C-alpha cells in the first residue's frame, strides 16, 4: 500500500499566470460606489447619507441606471426557469422541502409533481398519505424553478419526463457562481456518461440510460448494476469537475469535455493531486482560448 506524503509548498497565484484584466471595478464592503443619486440600487449595495455604498466584496455591474455589486461566491439565488438538483429534507403536508444550497429551503408542492402512471387528476387524500412512497427524506431530485415566493424561497416543479427522482450516479457540489446559464443543462457527453448541471451548484453525473423509457413520471429508479467502464468514466468526470472548481473555472459542457480529454493520460486517482489538477486545467484553458480565438 503506497502512502503519499508531500511537504507544504507556496501556493501559486493564478493571477501570476494569467493576465489580470484591469477593466473591472472591484469593491469591498463600505466602499463608496458613487455619490450620484440618479442611479437605482441593486443587490449588494445600500444607501447611506446620499451615498451608494457596497455591502459585499465583488465586481460592480452597471446596466443603464441600475448598479449592483455581484459577490464572488454566494448561495444560490434562484430564478424562474432554472434547473436545480436538490435533496429532500422534509415531507410535510402536501409539499416536500428540498435543500438546494440557497438561503431558504425550496418547496416542491404535491401538485407540481407527476403522479406515477402519468395520470392527470386532482390530488386526493390518498395521494397525500402516499407522498412518502414517492419521495422520502434524502432522495435526490432534478426539478425546474416554477416561481419565487416573496421571502425568497423557490417553488419547484417536476412536471416533465426529464425531471424527477434521480437514480444511480455521483453528485458533485460546487459553487453556484461557477455554473454558466445555458440553454440546456442536460448533456449526454460523448465520453459515455450523462450530466445534469444544476444552476444551484449541484452537478449530477450518471450513466446514460439506454433507451428513452416512457416511465411513470420519473419515480422508478433503475437499480441494475452499472458496468465498470461506465463507472470509470463517471469517476473521471467527477475528478475533472473537482479540478475545474478548485481552479474556479466556469463549468459548461465544452469545458468539462476538454478537461476530460486532457485528463485521459492520467490515472483516475492521480487526478486528485494538485500538480495534475493544475496541468489539466491549464490545458483546458488553452484549448478554450484557442477555440474562441
Amino acid at each position, binding site marked *: 500500500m503506497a502512502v503519499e506524503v508531500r511537504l507544504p509548498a507556496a501556493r501559486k497565484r493564478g493571477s501570476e499566470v494569467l493576465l489580470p484584466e484591469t477593466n473591472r471595478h472591484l469593491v469591498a464592503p463600505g466602499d463608496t460606489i458613487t455619490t450620484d443619486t440618479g442611479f437605482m440600487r441593486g443587490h449588494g449595495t445600500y444607501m447611506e447619507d446620499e451615498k451608494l455604498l457596497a455591502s459585499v466584496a465583488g465586481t460592480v455591474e452597471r446596466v443603464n441606471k441600475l448598479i449592483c455589486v455581484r459577490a464572488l461566491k454566494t448561495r444560490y439565488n434562484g430564478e424562474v426557469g432554472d434547473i436545480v438538483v436538490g435533496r429532500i429534507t422534509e415531507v410535510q403536508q*402536501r409539499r416536500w422541502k428540498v435543500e438546494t444550497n440557497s438561503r431558504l429551503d425550496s418547496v416542491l*408542492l*404535491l*401538485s407540481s409533481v407527476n403522479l406515477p402512471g402519468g395520470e392527470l387528476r*386532482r*390530488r386526493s387524500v390518498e395521494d397525500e398519505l402516499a407522498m412518502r412512497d414517492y419521495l422520502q427524506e434524502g432522495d435526490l431530485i432534478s426539478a425546474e424553478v416554477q416561481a419565487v415566493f416573496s421571502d425568497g424561497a423557490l417553488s419547484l416543479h417536476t412536471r416533465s419526463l426529464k425531471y424527477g427522482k434521480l437514480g444511480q450516479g455521483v453528485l458533485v457540489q460546487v459553487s453556484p457562481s461557477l455554473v454558466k446559464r445555458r440553454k440546456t443543462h442536460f448533456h449526454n457527453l460523448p465520453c459515455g456518461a450523462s450530466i445534469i448541471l444544476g444552476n444551484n451548484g449541484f452537478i449530477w453525473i450518471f450513466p446514460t440510460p439506454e433507451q428513452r423509457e416512457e416511465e411513470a413520471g420519473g419515480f422508478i429508479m433503475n437499480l441494475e448494476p452499472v458496468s465498470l467502464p461506465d463507472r470509470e468514466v463517471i469517476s473521471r468526470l467527477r475528478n475533472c469537475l473537482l479540478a475545474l472548481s478548485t481552479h474556479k473555472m466556469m463549468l459548461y459542457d465544452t469545458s468539462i469535455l476538454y478537461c476530460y480529454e486532457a485528463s485521459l493520460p492520467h490515472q483516475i486517482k492521480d487526478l486528485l493531486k494538485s500538480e495534475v489538477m493544475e496541468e489539466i486545467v491549464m490545458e483546458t484553458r488553452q484549448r478554450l482560448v484557442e477555440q474562441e480565438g
Partner: protein
Amino acid sequence: MREPPLSNCEKSFLLKAIREGKRLDGRETYDYRNIKISFGTDYGCCIVELGRTRVLGQVSCELVPPKVNRPTEGIIFFNLELSPMASPAFELGRQSELLIKLNRLLERCLRNSKCIDTESLCVVAGEKVWQVRVDLHLLNHEGNIIDAASIAAIVALSHFRRHDVSIQGDEVTVYTPEEREPVPLSIHHMPICVSFAFFQQGTYLLVDPSDREERVLDGMLVIAMNKHREICTIQSSGGIMLLKEQVLRCSKIAGVKVTEITELIQKALENDKKIRKEGGKCGFVESMPQQWITAFKVEKAPVDVTDVEEKAEGILSRAEPPAEAVSKPVLWATGTAQIGEGLESSWRDMEEEEGQVEDEDDEGAIDDPTLAVTQNIEMEDISGKEEKKSDVDVVVLSDSEEEEVIILEPEESRIHTRSKHPADSSATKTTAGKKKRKKKFAL
C-alpha cells in the same frame, strides 16, 4: 415560561415618551431610582433595593488550599443567581445568556479591578488561604440587575467580617467571633456599575433603565467606576454602534453618579455600625417597613395649566350641545323601573362587522386632565361597500392543491367624525343597513 412580548403600542408609546424626554416613573434622563440598603443580623448579608429591583448578597469564607500558580493569594468567587422568584421568565437550571453576561461582568468588575486585597487573605503561603464567596440572588426584577448586583456585592463585602487568625510558628489558630472580634476585609476601592440604555440607534440615552425601558432598548453600555474616577470596566452590549463622544460623555455622567452612590453606601454602613455598637436591633425584620395602608394619599401630579382657559373655550365652542337627559323613571312592575333607554342592541350586527375598524380620536383631550371632556365619535358603515371578503375556508376548484392563502387586508373603513344632531340621529337609527357606535370619553 416565556415572557409575553411587549405589545407594539406599548413599545411605540415608550419610545415616543423617551423622544420627548419623559419616563414612565417621572424620572429625569440621568436620575437613579431610590436606593435602599438594609443589612441582616449576620455580617456580610445585605439587601439592596434599586427602585423595586431587589438583590440579596451574602458573603461567606472558608480556609482552602490556594491555587497552584498563585500560592500567596486568596480566592474570591462571585456568583449571581437568577431565580424564577425574580421574574417568571427566568427558568431554574438553564444557564441563559443573560446569566452568563451578568456573571462575567460582575467578575470583571470586582475581580479584575482588584478591589479586594487578595494578599491579605493569605494565611499560610502555599497551604491555606481564605476563599471568600459572594453569592448574589436576584429577588425581584424591575430592570437594571447589574447595578443593583454590583452595589449589593460591594456592600456585602464591606460589611463582612472574617474570623481572626493568628499564627505562632507552625500553628495556626482561627478564633471564633466569641473569642476575638472578627476582622473586616481590606477593600481598596468600591467599583460601582452604572448602566446606560440607548434608544433609536444611540440618539437617546437613559440612565438606570427600568424593566419596560430595558425591553425596548437598542443597546446598553455599562461603566463600572469607583469614586476616585477610575474606570474599572466598560462593556457595551446589544447591537448598537456607539461614537467615541458618547462613550466619553457616559463616563463623565458615571463619575457623578458613582460619587453619589458611594456616599450612600458609606452612610448606610456607618449607620449599621452605629446600631450594632449601641446594641440596637438590627436585621432584615427591622428594616422591612410595616406596609399597612393607614391612609391613602396620592401625590399631586403636576399639571400644565397655562392655557387651560383658552383650550376650554375652544373645546366648548366646537362641541355640540349635550344630549337631552331622560329623567323620568318608568315603572314596569313592582320593583322594576327604568330610567332612560339603552342603546340599540348590536348583537345581531356582529356578522356584518368583520371589516370594521374603530378608531379613537384623542386630539385635544389629553393635555387637560383636569377638564372633563365628552367626545362623541361616530362611525358609519357605508352600505355600498363590500363587506364580505371571501372567507377563509372557501372551496376553490382549481388544480392547485394548495389551500388558498388569503391575505386579509384591513379594509379602508371610512371614519366619520360628525357632530351628532338629535334630529339626524333618530332618522338614521331606523335606516336599515347602517350601524352606529357611540363612545364617550370622560377624562
